[in-house]
């Protein structure tokens, strides 16, 4: 664990209502890790806690939410109890993030150069003119033509694809070690998407940065990522190397997700939709949160939530089916199966 760039240990972030009566477990007991230069894909349906997890890492949760437990180790430091002023110097400098809506994430009243150069001025104390010069270089590095003119323009003078490149340039401006991209291509059309993904990969390679890619597009995961974490109802239900998870999914939810992608290879194929709705995060069932929708659920799933079973190094799943020996484990208590897992 020591040489990991980022490792999350049992991180939970909950929304608590003003009276304290309603607790929404948006991110629950998440354990993840990422090496320098590696790409981790996080997939899951809307509301599964992907974006909240990203904001948890950056400690920029909305006011109603807070981190209630766990450690977020980044380059050997725990971000959870870092003072606010020091945390601010991590954002944009060591960990950057790209938001999903390029049309809304640039300030309409300031020039591109101002907005791209801003992190340099704040984190590196660059002067106005040197920040402007470096903004031009950054705009060029995200392959936007005529950066000299573009730098003085306003966001509304650019297309969605260009704006998202600008947001990428802002993310790269201080050469962070980790870039979190929250569905960065969702609002772009397909050809622009492909170009943007290529660009991200190229930037990643040249700067050796680690990437967390939040998406609900498994095709993008296959193309971009080394590691995959599948989130469901605030928890990571399965994780491991992308190729292993794709070829041999352990969790029925992962299987269902993979079954819901249309393939071009076969003539006709039944796409599987997952019946039912994700559970209410303020009122989670006693057992496994996927049990109600799970085709493979059995009695134990309804009463007892499965722990995170490590199946092989770097690969784990929160499912009783992934327990070392399914039948033996039915009688085991959770602490025992945890020790078996570790």
């Amino acid at each position, binding site marked *: 664990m020591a040489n990991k760039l980022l490792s999350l240990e049992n991180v939970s972030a909950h929304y608590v209502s003003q009276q304290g009566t309603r607790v929404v477990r948006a991110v629950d007991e998440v354990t993840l890790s990422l090496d320098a230069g590696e790409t981790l894909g996080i997939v899951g349906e809307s509301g599964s806690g992907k974006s909240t997890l990203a904001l948890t890492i*950056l400690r920029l949760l909305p006011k109603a939410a807070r981190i209630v437990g766990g450690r977020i180790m980044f380059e050997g430091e725990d971000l959870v109890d870092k003072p606010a002023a020091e945390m601010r110097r991590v954002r944009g400098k060591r960990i950057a993030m790209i938001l999903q809506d390029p049309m809304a994430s640039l300030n309409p009243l300031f020039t591109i150069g101002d907005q791209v150069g801003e992190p340099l001025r704040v984190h590196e104390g660059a002067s106005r003119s040197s920040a402007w010069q470096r903004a031009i270089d950054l705009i060029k590095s995200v392959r936007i033509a005529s950066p000299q003119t573009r730098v003085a323009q306003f966001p509304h003078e650019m297309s969605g694809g260009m704006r998202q490149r600008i947001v990428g340039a802002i993310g790269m401006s201080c050469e962070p070690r980790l870039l979190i991209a929250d569905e960065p291509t969702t609002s772009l059309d397909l050809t622009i998407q492909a170009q943007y993904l290529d660009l991200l990969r190229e930037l990643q390679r040249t700067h050796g940065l680690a990437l967390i890619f939040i998406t609900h597009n498994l095709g993008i995961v296959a193309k971009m990522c080394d590691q995959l974490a599948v989130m469901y109802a605030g928890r990571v239900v399965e994780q491991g190397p992308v190729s292993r998870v794709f070829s041999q999914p352990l969790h029925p939810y992962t299987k269902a997700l993979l079954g819901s992608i249309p393939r071009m290879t076969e003539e006709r194929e039944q796409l599987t939709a997952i019946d039912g709705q994700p559970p209410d995060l303020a009122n989670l069932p006693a057992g496994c949160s996927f049990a109600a929708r799970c085709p493979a659920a059995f009695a134990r799933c309804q009463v007892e939530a499965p722990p995170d079973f490590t199946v092989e190094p770097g690969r784990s799943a929160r499912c009783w089916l992934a327990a070392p020996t399914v039948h033996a484990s039915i009688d085991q208590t959770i602490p025992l199966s945890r020790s078996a897992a570790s």
Partner: protein
Amino acid sequence: MKQFIVRRVGYSLLSLFLLSVTIFLFVRVTGDPTTLLVEPGASPEDIENMRHQFGLDQPLWVQYWLFATSFVTGDLGQSFYYRTPVLELYFQRLPNSLQLAAVAMVLSLLIGIPSGILAAVRVGGFWDSAGKTFSLLGLSLPQFWVGLVLILFFSVYLGWLPSSGSGGILHLLMPAFTLGWYFAAAHMRLTRSSMLEVLDSEYVKLARLKGLPEALVIGKHALKNALIPVITLAGINLVVMINVAVVVETVFAWPGIGRLLYEGITFRDFPVVQCVVVLGGSMIIVVNLLVDILYAYIDPRIRLES
């Protein structure tokens, strides 16, 4: 930009025409001015003479035509009561109204914008509640009552400020605060709500993700966007303040155009009422036009869309 301005000017002229027709008809609904102006016991012939002298015996459309054509040449007629050109009366009083409105505006912005920002940044906290109370009182307390209470405290009990009339800065304080409180409340509420909306935007989120200090996030990224509607409102309100201080000017005996309008209505002095209302309306229309243009200048998106 040129086409944008031309179109806006066209709309403005149309508004001015509708306003002049409306006030022209409304003021004539109040009754016959001659009955207030003739001496007691005047004969019907005397009254008829006076009506003829003022042109009130002609058909309405003729009267309007005369009013409109002379208005275009800059002549607004003579006061029935004072028998002097109404413009003269108007420009005697206007500087006082301008002075009052300017001080009231400065007060309202100095109070409204910072307290609006504070309320939005500390939403749900003490300063938010304090601001809400302040603005609720400002919007709902009648100005004549606020004025009278101020006079009671600062003039009668404490003897610090003069209760009425014009003169030095001391005379201005109470009327300006009475007039400005309402607008401070309006400016505060708009700053707060527009700030809250902007603070929730993606670009403010990105500004925080960049690691900018909170002062820069709020003072630069949020504030400039949030102030756009406040500038619009303040620009219009300045002119509104000049023209709606009727109650405040009456309570504090402040010799502005509000008092002139009040007197004009009391005496059915049609040219005075028409003059104050049409010139006030013109001011509001012109300022709306200027604000639109200024707005287009600040916000580059509007500049290009037109």
